[in-house]
């Protein structure tokens, strides 16, 4: 019962199964490629959406205007408290003088306005840079109750809309991927069923001489996994080529560049290959299992 003999047997069975119906094999590999490409596109889109949101968020600062004459010690405590909140990256204190300096710089073209700027009453403020914009409402709601605070301003609409889009894309994409994976497993199951059918006499004899179900199943499952592997490798290749091209030809007029984080791209590739193999394994398993169940008690 050496495992070496078994492995050799499984491999040769898989190889000869592959030869049985080339066209169907191509079809099932192609379906895996298409599904995994869709999955890849989704993951890439999601990646870019996420980096765009991060980009927008880092530019979005929550401005917390302080009441005039709030004691420095109280402001300092408040600043440290906000820094400790979940989703906050950094908090800057903008003094009255600094605010005035900024305003002056903004209006530097209009020299005659300089006088006015000096006389306008400006509040000091805390500027909050968010690490995670989805936490913005919880952060502001905590701050709102503080006594030293006058008003809060931030790009509420943009941030919440982007986060909403991301949520919708995630849910919709996930649903589409699940459906695609089921369809792919189904196509693979059909292909494997043909191989199983072509080899039904052998399977029958195997059953009669006492081969276990698993012994009979393995070569077919390996075949399904192989279809999944080849199909997803193709998908990774196509996606990599396409995405690289896109990244290189990305119109400069767009505000944000394509995300090109190698670590994440590697993870996406691994996810596609694993996904393809899992779908292949599942499709072939269900097919051969069903066949064995219907043939004999």
């Amino acid at each position: 019962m050496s495992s070496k003999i078994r492995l050799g047997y499984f491999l040769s069975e898989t190889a000869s199964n592959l030869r049985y119906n080339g066209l169907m094999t191509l079809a099932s590999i192609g379906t895996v490629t298409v599904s995994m490409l869709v999955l890849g596109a989704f993951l890439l889109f999601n990646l870019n959406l996420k980096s765009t949101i991060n980009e927008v968020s880092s530019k979005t600062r929550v401005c917390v205007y302080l009441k005039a004459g709030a004691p420095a010690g109280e402001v300092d405590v408040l600043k440290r408290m906000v820094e400790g909140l979940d989703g906050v990256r950094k908090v800057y204190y903008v003094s009255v003088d600094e605010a005035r300096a900024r305003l002056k710089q903004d209006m530097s073209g209009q020299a005659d306005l300089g006088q006015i700027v000096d006389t306008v009453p400006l509040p000091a403020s805390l500027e909050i840079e968010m690490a995670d914009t989805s936490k913005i409402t919880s952060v502001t709601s905590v701050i709102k109750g503080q006594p030293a605070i006058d008003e809060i301003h931030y790009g509420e609409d943009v941030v919440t809309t982007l986060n909403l889009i991301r949520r919708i894309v995630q849910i919709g994409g996930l649903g589409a991927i699940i459906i695609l994976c089921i369809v792919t497993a189904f196509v693979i199951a059909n292909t494997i069923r043909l191989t199983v059918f072509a080899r039904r006499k052998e399977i029958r004899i195997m059953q009669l001489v006492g081969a276990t179900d698993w012994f009979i199943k393995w070569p077919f499952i390996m075949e399904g996994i192989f279809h999944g592997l080849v199909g997803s490798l193709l998908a990774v290749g196509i996606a990599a080529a396409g995405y690289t091209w896109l990244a290189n030809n990305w119109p400069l007029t767009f505000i944000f560049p394509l995300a090109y984080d190698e670590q994440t791209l590697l993870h996406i590739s691994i996810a596609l290959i694993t996904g393809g193999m899992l779908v292949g394994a599942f499709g072939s398993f269900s097919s051969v299992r069903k066949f064995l169940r219907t043939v004999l008690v």
Partner: protein
Amino acid sequence: MITFQGVSVVHPNGVTALRDLDLKIEKGDFLFIVGPTGSGKSTILKLIYREEVCTAGRIIVAGKEITGMARRQIPYLRRGVGVVFQDFKLLPQRTAWDNVAFALHVIGVGKAEVKRQVAKVLDNVGLLHKADALPTELSAGEQQRICIARAVVNNPVILVADEPTGNLDPDTSWDIVQLLSRINVKGTTVVMATHDRHIVDRMRKRVVALQDGRLVRDEDKGAYVCEL
């Protein structure tokens, strides 16, 4: 070796294949099952290697109750029961040798052992010199010998044969039965369903006759038809 107790088989379509059958087959027996077509001969054999299940009664094979046997245990039952059919069921793209070796490969026997056993069994059935022939290059009688070789290469305790001579001329049929008889003499229990009157009458072995799924006769050293 094989015990049937009150066994009935009713198919889902309502056809009753066996009715309340009691049968005891001892170790080393050579038993013919005879009866008109549709009387239940094949059903009995299929019950032994559990291709069919009974709807009532108990079946014990090689000391094991197989009535409620779990699916995953069936392969191990079958390793002890060799099966031979009327239509051979050889794999057409494989040589005689490979057809026999296949039966050992798929139950995980090692290469060296497979080689040893296959050579031995092919020699026993007198076809070692045809080891490399494809089934199409063999006569019907030779093909059946290869099937028998495949059925016994694993040294099963029981050999079940469903009309093994159904496609053969009388002389070849007689040779095949002699081969089965030699296997029986070495200790294997042989159960053979047949329509072949001459063979049954010449062999003078135990005969079980069926009619409409009922056992109607069970004779030692019996004949094809009742002689009383």
